[in-house]
């Protein structure tokens, strides 16, 4: 039996094509995936991401962990548990992207951590890894004797509203529901969040566009979704979410990285703080070995197919493999993320085996698209 989000009946009533996504019954598209993609690039679209899990990290009672050390705060714990450094979070509401690593440096998950107060951090993890993550974090808490409480928030729904007009459409919907919501979220800078009554609103996303990710009580999700649709926000499925994030050069956990690779070989060195003196899970392993591979972008230059995951890539420095590939609706060309030898660089050429044919691709530095515009000098976005 697949798990269902609070919006499942709405997706089914809309005639969405549903798929099993990590054990969840999720909409892949409501019609044309490309039209949904372009709606996000040009106007506003929304995604049900309630399958993802918010987990609150707060001070606990001593009775919950008899081994607790009184002075071990949420910040102390996350400073040790995450590869990125929560000490970068100095302003309440600020968010940080980070990997959760195993001691050997393998990526258990990628997540966003929000700093709301010293007594309240919220992390948002992927759906298929949520149970594993919570179990891992609990074992770490026990191991360190931390006095902390983890609360998985399955009572919350999550809706990502993305696109150049996403914020104004959210405000239009909120003005009847919470008069302070616009005033409090208008000043939010990217990667900042605020809690306004029953809404938790973050200026974050997974598309390369502006927008909000909104958490709210599950019981309110259907009404809020319908109001957004009435305000002109197009429902979009996981298919468009995948092509949008790939154009934006963002990794998908389980596809571009997993427990068998470390973040330095996954294009995520910028999210690992190795500069500070702090210790964190996986640090010793990351320092012990220089990366031999890298995750980088490919742009297909030959006609003849579409780049796909697991296609073999040949470079002057050796072989590699595509981890995510698709047709980019914005560029009208095929793009990919590929794990290639550390010795190759953007601007060089590679050969890709596409269904038995050898096609030429250019190695490029992601992202491919940001805020609706091509970032590749040689290729312009398709006209409106």
């Amino acid at each position, binding site marked *: 039996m697949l798990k269902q989000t609070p919006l499942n009946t709405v997706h089914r009533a809309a005639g969405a*094509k549903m798929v099993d996504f990590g054990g969840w019954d999720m909409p*892949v*598209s409501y019609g*044309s*995936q*490309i039209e949904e993609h372009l709606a996000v690039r040009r106007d506003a679209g929304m995604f049900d991401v309630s399958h993802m899990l918010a987990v609150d990290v707060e001070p606990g009672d001593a009775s919950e962990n008899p081994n607790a050390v009184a002075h071990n705060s949420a910040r102390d714990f996350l400073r040790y548990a995450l590869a990125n450094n929560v000490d970068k979070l100095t302003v309440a509401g600020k968010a940080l992207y980070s990997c959760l690593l195993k001691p050997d440096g393998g990526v258990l998950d990628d997540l966003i951590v929000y700093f709301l107060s010293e007594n309240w951090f919220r992390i948002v993890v992927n759906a298929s890894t949520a149970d594993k993550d919570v179990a891992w974090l609990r074992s770490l808490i026990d191991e360190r004797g931390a006095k902390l409480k983890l609360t998985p928030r399955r009572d919350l729904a999550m809706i990502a509203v993305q696109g150049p007009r996403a914020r104004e459409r959210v405000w239009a919907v909120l003005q009847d529901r919470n008069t302070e919501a616009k005033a409090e979220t208008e000043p939010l800078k990217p990667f900042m969040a605020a809690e306004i009554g029953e809404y938790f609103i973050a200026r974050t996303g997974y598309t390369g566009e502006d927008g909000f990710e909104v958490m709210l009580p599950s019981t309110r999700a259907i009404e809020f979704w319908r109001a957004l649709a009435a305000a002109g926000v197009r429902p979009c499925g996981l*298919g468009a979410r995948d*092509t949008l994030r790939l154009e934006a050069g963002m990794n998908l956990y389980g596809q571009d990285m997993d427990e068998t690779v470390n973040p330095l070989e996954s294009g995520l060195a910028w999210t690992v703080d190795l500069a500070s003196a702090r210790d964190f899970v996986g640090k010793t392993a990351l320092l012990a070995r220089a990366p031999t591979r890298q995750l980088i972008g490919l742009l297909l230059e030959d006609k*003849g*197919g*579409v780049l*796909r995951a697991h296609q073999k890539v040949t470079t002057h420095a050796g072989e590699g493999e595509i981890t995510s590939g*698709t*047709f980019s*609706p914005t560029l009208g060309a095929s793009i990919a993320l590929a794990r290639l030898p550390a010795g190759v660089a953007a601007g060089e050429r590679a050969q890709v085996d596409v*269904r038995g044919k050898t096609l030429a691709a250019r190695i490029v530095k992601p992202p491919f698209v940001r805020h609706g515009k091509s970032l590749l000098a040689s290729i312009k976005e398709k006209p409106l």
Partner: protein
Amino acid sequence: MNVPTNLKYTASHEWIRSEPDGTLTIGITDHAQEALGDLVFIELPAVGRKVKAGEACAVVESVKAASDIYAPVSGEIVAVNEQVVASPEMINADAYGHWLYKLKPANAADVASLLDAAAYIAAVGEE
């Protein structure tokens, strides 16, 4: 499901129209385009190529996946539709209005072995 009764079908989701000159016109069904999603690339066989029944002879790729297109009967490719190569999305808009290739069957009687509309609907139902 949109399955015109004047066409024949395969269980692998090709539609086949018998032309007065004895050739067969082949495309993909509406069910197939719906399942594949937005088509972005089509590769067609060389005219003159001899194919066997069930042989993969064309490829359609959507945003999501690549899918082989099979020859419904043995024969020779006599024409291909370059319009759909230039604009694959035409097939999403009207799967029966746009063909992929034309085939001259080696044995005209083979066409009788193809599925009719009712049998195709039943085959889709069993997937």
